[in-house]
């Protein structure tokens, strides 16, 4: 197999050196077909699972300490254990990947749909349920196509459906997809969407999906990458899985590094064994910042994550290390920005995303995110006054009461504020919009100040401000 190479048929994936769990088949151009999957040992994890008792399969997964790869990083085996002994119960696969910077799940669905399907069947067996919904993001036409074809083949060949592999076990997997709404990646919003409703999150408690999920029945919602690990774990055992990665975060995970690096890409890395410095500068990974520029900042875990700076480069990519340092690994989306980046502009761009995608259910988020966007626009349009800086922080603190998680800044004597943020909303979308604002204001306040042109006290300027706010064009799209 080629190492350290760009894989043309899996655009974006870099086949670097290191152990491979979920991308092992990516180098094969035909990896998405059933014959190739079976040749590479596919569905043997399912065979082994079916020889075991369901509870033992669940125990094996729990023993592997498989941390959820969707963002929260909660152990899948423990999550499974939250289901009360009530039937029917459902498995919902979250393939609604839309966090800015993330696209590992799309590659897993396009390049190796059978691996995901095998993971789904293993999970259904372990949890004693027979209906699984695989929810793919609406904008991912190729992923939908590949999974549909793979499911049709898997049904024909008895890997899914009635009497799986000649046993009495019968499980259905239904492919379904969304229609453009970031918020549906939140598990309770995903369930609402699956019930045919507007994708607005439910309040937890009482609507914890494991107890009251789809149709108010116990429901497990797992991320695509999480389930894609299961065939390997069942084939090779939890003990071998734990030999990779670190003690608290075993195994590998996918990270997508984009922005100003020389070789952006999706990399499979061992958890906790690679630092951000290795990842950005290492020969085996991104090979440095473009034009050998200085690093200005980076987002370690998708648009929702507070920013990191050069002081955090030596942290290992491991959830248990990143949280106390003031951010999160989230869905493994890393965006690197070099010294030429305008911090206010970058901040505006990420905030605009949350303003567009707010579902409108909670007032602090619905009103707050669009005000954040409008205020940031004033800085970019040359219509800001000094008071806007505090106003921006104040609007943010209404969505997420301070102190907001942030990285340490030793030079200024500022300590890290650990993740997660507090929230006045049902789900974390609104509070996520405060991440870029807090990060940029704390570190690059001078850039905001440099963009101030209007005088706070000048009444004419206040009128000009009101006019500017009126003239702000209504954002296109959005889930409202």
């Amino acid at each position, binding site marked *: 197999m080629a190492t350290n190479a760009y894989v043309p048929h899996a*655009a974006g994936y870099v086949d670097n050196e290191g152990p491979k769990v979920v991308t092992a088949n990516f180098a094969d151009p035909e990896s998405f077909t059933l014959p190739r999957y079976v040749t590479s040992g596919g569905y043997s994890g399912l065979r082994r699972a079916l020889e075991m*008792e369901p509870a033992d399969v669940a125990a094996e997964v729990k023993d592997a300490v498989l941390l959820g790869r969707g963002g929260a990083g909660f152990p899948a085996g423990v999550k499974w254990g939250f289901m009360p002994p009530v039937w029917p119960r459902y498995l919902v696969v979250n393939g609604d990947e839309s966090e800015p910077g993330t696209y590992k799940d799309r590659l897993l669905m396009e390049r190796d749909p059978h691996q995901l399907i095998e993971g789904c069947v293993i999970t259904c067996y372990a949890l004693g*349920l027979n209906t699984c919904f695989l929810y793919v993001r609406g904008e991912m036409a190729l992923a939908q196509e590949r999974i549909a074809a793979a499911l049709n083949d898997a049904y024909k060949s008895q890997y899914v459906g009635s009497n799986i592999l000649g046993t009495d076990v019968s499980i259905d997997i239904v492919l379904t997809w969304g229609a453009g709404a970031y918020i549906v990646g939140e598990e309770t919003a995903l369930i609402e969407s699956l019930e045919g409703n507007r994708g607005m999150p439910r309040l937890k408690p009482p609507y914890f999906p494991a107890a009251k999920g789809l149709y108010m029945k116990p429901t497990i919602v797992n991320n695509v990458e999480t389930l894609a690990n299961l065939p390997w774990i069942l084939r090779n055992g939890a003990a071998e899985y734990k030999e990779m990665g670190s003690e608290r975060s075993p195994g590998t995970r996918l990270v997508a590094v984009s922005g100003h690096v020389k070789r952006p890409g999706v990399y499979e890395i061992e958890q906790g064994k690679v630092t951000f410095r290795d990842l950005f500068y290492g020969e085996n990974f991104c090979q440095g910042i473009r034009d050998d520029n200085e690093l200005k900042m980076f987002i370690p875990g998708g*648009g929702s994550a507070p920013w990191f700076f050069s002081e955090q480069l030596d942290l290992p990519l491991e959830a248990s290390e990143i949280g106390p340092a003031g951010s999160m690994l989230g869905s493994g989306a890393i965006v690197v920005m070099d010294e030429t980046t305008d911090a206010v502009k*970058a901040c505006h761009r990420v905030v605009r995303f949350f303003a567009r995608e707010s579902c409108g259910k909670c007032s602090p988020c619905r009103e707050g995110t669009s005000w954040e966007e409008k205020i940031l626009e004033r800085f970019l349009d040359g219509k800001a006054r000094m008071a806007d800086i505090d106003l921006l922080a104040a609007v943010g603190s209404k969505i997420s009461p301070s102190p907001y998680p942030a990285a340490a800044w030793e030079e200024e004597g500022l300590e890290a504020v650990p993740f997660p943020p507090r929230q006045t909303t049902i789900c974390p979308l609104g509070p996520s919009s405060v991440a870029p604002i807090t990060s940029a204001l704390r570190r690059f306040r001078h850039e905001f100040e440099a963009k101030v042109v209007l005088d706070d006290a000048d009444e004419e300027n206040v009128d000009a401000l009101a006019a500017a706010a009126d003239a702000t064009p209504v954002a296109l799209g959005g889930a409202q």
Partner: protein
Amino acid sequence: MSRLNENSLTLAEEIIKRYPRPKSALIPLLHLAQEQDGYVSDDAMRHIAELVGVTPAEVLGTCSFYEMFKRHPVGTYMINVCTNISCQLNGAEDLLEAAEDLLGVRAGGTTEDGMFTLEDVECIAACTEAPALQVNYRYEHRIDRQGLEALIEDLRAGKRTDIPPHGTLALVRQHLDPTRAAGIESPEQAGTPVWFARRQPAKEGA
């Protein structure tokens, strides 16, 4: 403009059976309507309401939440330029400007010939291949003004047969063969799977 035609209706009935409750089929059926007409018409929403047993207002309620559903005719090709952070860092604003210039419409607009609709969209999950865009949800990676010009020319000339008209997503559908399906029941009827009950020690629950 129209209700679901015979072909769509057959598919719709198959899709509804796939869900424990008919209303769960709402989004797939809206996609089906959009595939038939290129957008979701009021009549199609009324028809879907009849099929799943909800009011037309409920169908509109769901439909209007999701950005991909268009309730008015749009171009045969929907060009979605990503302007989120990773693409922005790599020239997405110039790309969007070039698209507006080449097509002669602002983001959100449709060309007079009804061929193209241009949209300024959020992250489309191709961040390492920035700047990226989608044509009817099919990717174009690391594209610049020249690349876009060539793409538009090819689309106008009908050379991109790999890209179906707006409304069609996956070209392969899942077919649940009734002889191979485990069987999906309503949440009220469904219980513990027989195979699972058989594997439970008598004294224990789950």
